[in-house]
């Protein structure tokens, strides 16, 4: 097997073709999960009849059973209902912060790659500095700056994630800076602004989309780890990270309060990564 593979001539199917069988299953599952997630975010009442904030002290700490498939928390609130209602804020945080991160990254990478050698050096330094400053520490300081809540969380995670994407985009822009189509546009007399909006951004769109799809899961994890530390929405909120943090105090007697929000976060991460990887294989023409 490996001997035939190591021959210089290999007959691999082109990456543009449909995926082999085993990857189909993963992709289908990811699509299914994301559909449910989006449904939960748009119309949570469709998936549950309960109230995420309805307290029932008598039913506190009920283990998973028929009535409460995922159990109840310390105030008797149904975990399934709370998870469904938490989908919206998680998706908003994930998508919002990835959009912010990509915008910040673009606004650093474009002047860096096309603004002359001085700007290029400056942007390189900015990236170096932002990298030495751990992302989570940056987010920590930013959340301290804005107090806690959903919006500050988006800003903190978005700015924290920006240098990673910025460096990636910067590298890509540097390689296409002298590409044929840019030179052609320049020799046709297009202004830099025109080249930027008509040629560069449309060309960068696909890698941006892929990076965004791959990144949503990661930003959801970052956001939930910040709200786990108490920097997100305050406790009664039906937010996955906050719910997980609350369960930490009862871990010895009621594992389900912590376990299921974590499962939701992990599944979201896996689903978005699978989707992102599919997009990457399908649309990115890599030469290996």
């Amino acid at each position, binding site marked *: 097997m490996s001997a035939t593979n*190591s021959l210089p001539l290999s007959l691999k199917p082109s990456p543009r073709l449909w995926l082999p069988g085993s990857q189909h299953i993963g992709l289908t599952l990811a699509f299914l999960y994301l559909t449910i997630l989006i449904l939960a975010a748009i119309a949570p009442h469709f998936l549950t009849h309960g109230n995420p904030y309805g307290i029932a002290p008598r039913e506190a700490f009920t283990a998973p059973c028929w009535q409460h498939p995922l159990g109840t928390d310390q105030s008797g609130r149904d975990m399934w209902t709370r998870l469904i209602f938490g989908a919206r804020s998680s998706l908003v945080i994930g998508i919002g912060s990835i959009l912010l991160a990509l915008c910040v990254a673009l606004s650093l990478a474009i002047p860096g790659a096309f603004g002359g050698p001085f700007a290029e050096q400056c942007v390189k330094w900015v990236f170096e500095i932002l990298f030495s400053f751990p992302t989570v*520490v940056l987010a920590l300081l930013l959340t301290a700056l804005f107090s806690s809540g959903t919006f500050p969380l988006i800003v903190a995670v978005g700015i924290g994630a920006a240098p990673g994407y910025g460096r990636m985009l910067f590298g890509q822009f540097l390689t296409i800076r002298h590409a044929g189509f840019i030179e052609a546009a320049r020799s046709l007399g297009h202004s830099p602004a025109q080249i930027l909006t008509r040629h560069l951004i449309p060309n960068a769109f696909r890698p941006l989309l892929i990076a965004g799809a791959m990144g949503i899961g990661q930003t959801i994890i970052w956001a939930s780890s910040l709200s786990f530390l108490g920097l997100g929405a305050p406790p009664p909120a039906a937010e996955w990270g906050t719910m997980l943090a609350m369960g930490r105090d009862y871990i010895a007697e009621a594992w389900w309060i912590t376990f299921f929000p974590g499962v939701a976060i*992990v599944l979201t991460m896996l689903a978005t990564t699978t989707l992102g990887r599919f997009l990457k294989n399908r649309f990115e023409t890599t030469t290996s």
Partner: protein
Amino acid sequence: MILLPNTSFIILKKFILRVGGACLVLFAATTLTFITLQLAPGDPVTAILGGSANPTPETIKEIRTEYGLDKRLIVQYALHIWHVLSGHLGSSFSQHMPVKDVLWQQAPPTLKLMLSSLLLAWGFAILSVTLSAKKPLFDSAFSSLETFFAGLPQFWIGIILLWLFAYQLGLLPPAGTHGFSSLILPSLSLAIPLGGFLAQVMRESFKTTLDQPFVLTARARGLSDTAVRFRHVLRHALLPGVSLSTWAIGALVGNAVAVEFIFSRQGLGRQLFLAVSMHDMPLVTGIILFISVIYVIASFLADTLYVIIDPRIQEARA
């Protein structure tokens, strides 16, 4: 290789650039910390006074003068930079002891934690990739396992491990800083996602290297499959992992915050979090400077390791 006179100049120039860049990074980290803490709402005076109730306006004024908080912002900034440059990190507002002592006390547990999780992560990544890449069944199984590991949030693994090993099985202590047994669970919760991530990156280049002609040559010389993998292919697959490790150290510090909280460990992450929330400027500056120094050292080590693993790079760079 003959060392031309020119080469030593290039090395010197690179060294100076490197040190200059490191200084710039440290300076920027200090400034960034100063600005953010100035912008943050709240008052350092409350941190200095601790929990004591209702200070009189005179007390507040006294403290402001004592700590230099009544001076103009630009003067405060200049003084701050001067103190840092002359090596005086000052004393912590909230801990009422010199920042140096706090660092001395809190750094070793965090460094131990980071080192052991890096080792565990590398161990997992190397074994998982080397033993399974391009082997039917194993390859896809292990690569799915790596994706799964990479997607696990550290704080969640921490809690699950805590529940399983400390509360259900009672094998390991649930909290604490001292002793080897208290290090196992925290390092595992940091190492599992990191190991998955490193392995994902290494697998890609391991597979492309397996297709290289020199691998065929090695096989033709009669080397066993395992020998080929460990002695010839692994070296190539290590490179992307090494360059990621610098990034990983930055990420480890951040993730250590949550893990140190879960396992009630002493450490820089937890201390930094407390210091930020209490506006303890000297302590925050001290910890962030310390982290930046570690980052700078790590990135230097990673570059050196890179050249040791792949000697072609030195020739290409010089």
